[in-house]
């Protein structure tokens, strides 16, 4: 009988990415393979580093807003809100109540779009292309809402320090409820397609496992941590905005594998929709401004300038600015400005609803900017080079629940008009740090679903 030849085996190094479709073009994983089993992995990031933190030090406080859009570009509104809340904490300012509800609604819509993208993309990477198309369709309904409110789909720059850029457009509530109904229908379809799909479940189950204690040691937060059974959510642990007045649950998984993280994300979208619906029902209509200390509504009759009657004639802001430039003040006096909420600036009635009413932070209404010298100077003092919002010296850290976990902004001010330091705690950074641990012991093919469930967003990871 001939002797069986002994076949040598040795470990192999394989490069995954950066130009690999599953790595989103910006991650490189050097994996050490023994057959098909991953024995070691090294993750290399930084391909999308744009110097966000350095750039933030060179612009004004409101000028950082467009940069924050580009951190987590799948849910830019949450970044806007987080940054604004950090600066407002540093200043010691509270946004009006209506504005807080608007921020909650927009954050939750963004969270749904983020989860839709994450689940859709990772299902597509496992071959379920239909799901991806369905999810993108649902995301489209929500992005149309975002577009109607902010005027942009991706680079929204919607929040301002002390408020938001403009009020919700007319008929928003009905449109939003309709969009949520459509999204629910899509989620139901996707649930039927995926949750009991043999191929999908087999590939997700028991891959990329991590226990709750380990996840905490790695600093992992968000749906990833909740998939491991730890019910930590910033919205419940340290409630901000009006989350303590809204009812919602924290879905948690049990096994800490990819499948549980998928279930957690699906359940969270339903909770986010609940939050949006409650906020839509509870949002105070009409002019609302609260006293930062007492939390009581301000008496509008005592405010200067007094609330203008609704019967005054309306004039487009563009016409108003032309007349103002030619000195025809008599023609624009006692007119209400008409400003598209998706463009910059607001009229007097909107200003009282969405801005903090602090002259050193919020822009004046357009009637004042074009109609009198005090308003013009106030505007000038906030937007011209070398001027702007100037928080006192100090530092503040504010965590919000981003779509991937705790998104924290740490802002240091030296009393000048530029932030001295803006630090972002990106939620997927810590998960990416733990990625080698998640991969080791799994098969090479499991790398794709595990990486998909991390929901790596290059913008916030590399900054």
């Amino acid at each position: 009988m001939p002797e069986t030849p002994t076949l040598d085996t040795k470990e192999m190094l394989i490069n995954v990415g950066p130009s690999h479709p599953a790595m989103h073009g910006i991650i490189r994983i050097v994996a050490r393979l023994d057959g098909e089993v991953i024995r070691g992995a090294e993750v290399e990031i930084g391909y999308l580093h744009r110097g966000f933190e350095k750039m933030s030090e060179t612009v004004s406080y409101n000028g950082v807003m467009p940069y924050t859009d580009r951190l987590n570009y799948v849910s830019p509104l949450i970044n806007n809100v987080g940054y604004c809340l950090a600066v407002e904490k540093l200043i010691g300012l509270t946004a009006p109540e209506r504005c807080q509800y608007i921020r909650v609604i927009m954050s939750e819509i963004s969270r749904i779009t983020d989860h839709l993208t994450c689940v859709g993309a990772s299902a597509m990477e496992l071959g379920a292309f239909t799901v991806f198309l369905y999810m993108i369709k649902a995301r489209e309904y929500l992005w149309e809402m975002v577009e109607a409110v902010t005027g942009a789909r991706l680079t929204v720059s919607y929040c301002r320090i002390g408020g938001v850029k403009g009020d919700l457009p007319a008929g928003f509530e009905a449109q939003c409820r309709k969009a949520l109904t459509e999204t629910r229908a899509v989620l139901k379809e996707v649930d039927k397609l995926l949750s009991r799909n043999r191929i999908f479940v087999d590939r997700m189950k028991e891959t990329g496992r991590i226990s709750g204690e380990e996840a905490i040691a790695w600093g992992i937060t968000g749906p990833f941590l909740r998939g491991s059974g730890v019910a930590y959510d910033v919205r419940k642990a340290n409630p901000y905005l009006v989350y303590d007045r809204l009812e919602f649950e924290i879905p948690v998984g049990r096994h800490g594998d990819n499948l549980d993280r998928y279930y957690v994300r699906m359940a969270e979208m339903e909770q986010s929709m609940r939050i949006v619906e409650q906020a839509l029902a509870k949002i105070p209509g009409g002019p609302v401004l609260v006293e930062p200390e007492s939390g009581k509504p301000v008496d509008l009759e005592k405010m200067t300038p007094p609330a203008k009657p609704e019967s005054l004639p309306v004039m487009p802001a563009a016409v108003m600015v032309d007349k103002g430039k030619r000195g025809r003040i008599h023609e624009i006096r006692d007119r209400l400005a008409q400003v598209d909420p998706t463009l910059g600036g607001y009229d007097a009635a909107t200003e009282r609803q969405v801005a903090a009413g602090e002259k050193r932070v919020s822009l004046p209404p357009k009637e004042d900017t074009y109609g009198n010298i005090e308003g013009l100077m106030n505007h000038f003092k906030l937007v011209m080079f070398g001027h702007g919002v100037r928080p006192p010296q100090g530092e503040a850290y504010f965590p919000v629940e981003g779509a991937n976990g705790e998104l924290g902004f740490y802002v240091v001010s030296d009393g000048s008009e530029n932030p001295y330091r803006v630090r972002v705690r990106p939620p997927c950074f810590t998960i990416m740090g733990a990625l080698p641990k998640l991969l080791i012991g799994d098969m090479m093919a499991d790398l794709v679903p595990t990486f998909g469930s991390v929901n790596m967003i290059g913008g916030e990871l590399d900054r």
Partner: protein
Amino acid sequence: MNPASLCKTLADRFPQGVLGTHTFRGDATVTVRPEAMLEIARVLRDDPEFRMNFLMDLTAVDYLAFGKKPATGAFSNTGVAVRPPAEIGGKEAWPGRATGDRFEVVIHFFSLPLKHRLRIKVPVGGESPAVPSLTALWLAADWFEREVWDMYGIRFANHPNLKRLLMYDGFMGHPLRKDYPVNKRQPLVGPVN
């Protein structure tokens, strides 16, 4: 524990190690000596009073240019200086920094069981600034410390793999230092394999 009692408990426990405490805007902040940092971090994690199981964030701030910006905004073409609007005064003023060292390593802790947060600041200066590494206590410290080394050039003693994270090998300098010009260019490098 509320922010004030967190600061007090820690300051009473480590009278030598703690340089100063404050609760500006409700954030409990404790400045500690680099030598005492590791011991304090271990107590924060393991002591039933603190139970800080999350290392939420670890970063640094370079205070080289702090407060040195001219207090007036000047138009470069005319030289006319305009006084900017007054600072927005808060109810409480920031007590300032505990030391004059150039850098501060800033660590944010969170306790999930007790739901409290704490900021630890470690002042560090000198030619080659270095602080102890927290990688032995929290795995999350690994990448955070690599990023701080990359961006600020602060070394972490006993870190297992202290190399650049966001920038590439061969990058000169540490970009988030205040003396690194924002528009500085560096030569392109090819892929390293």
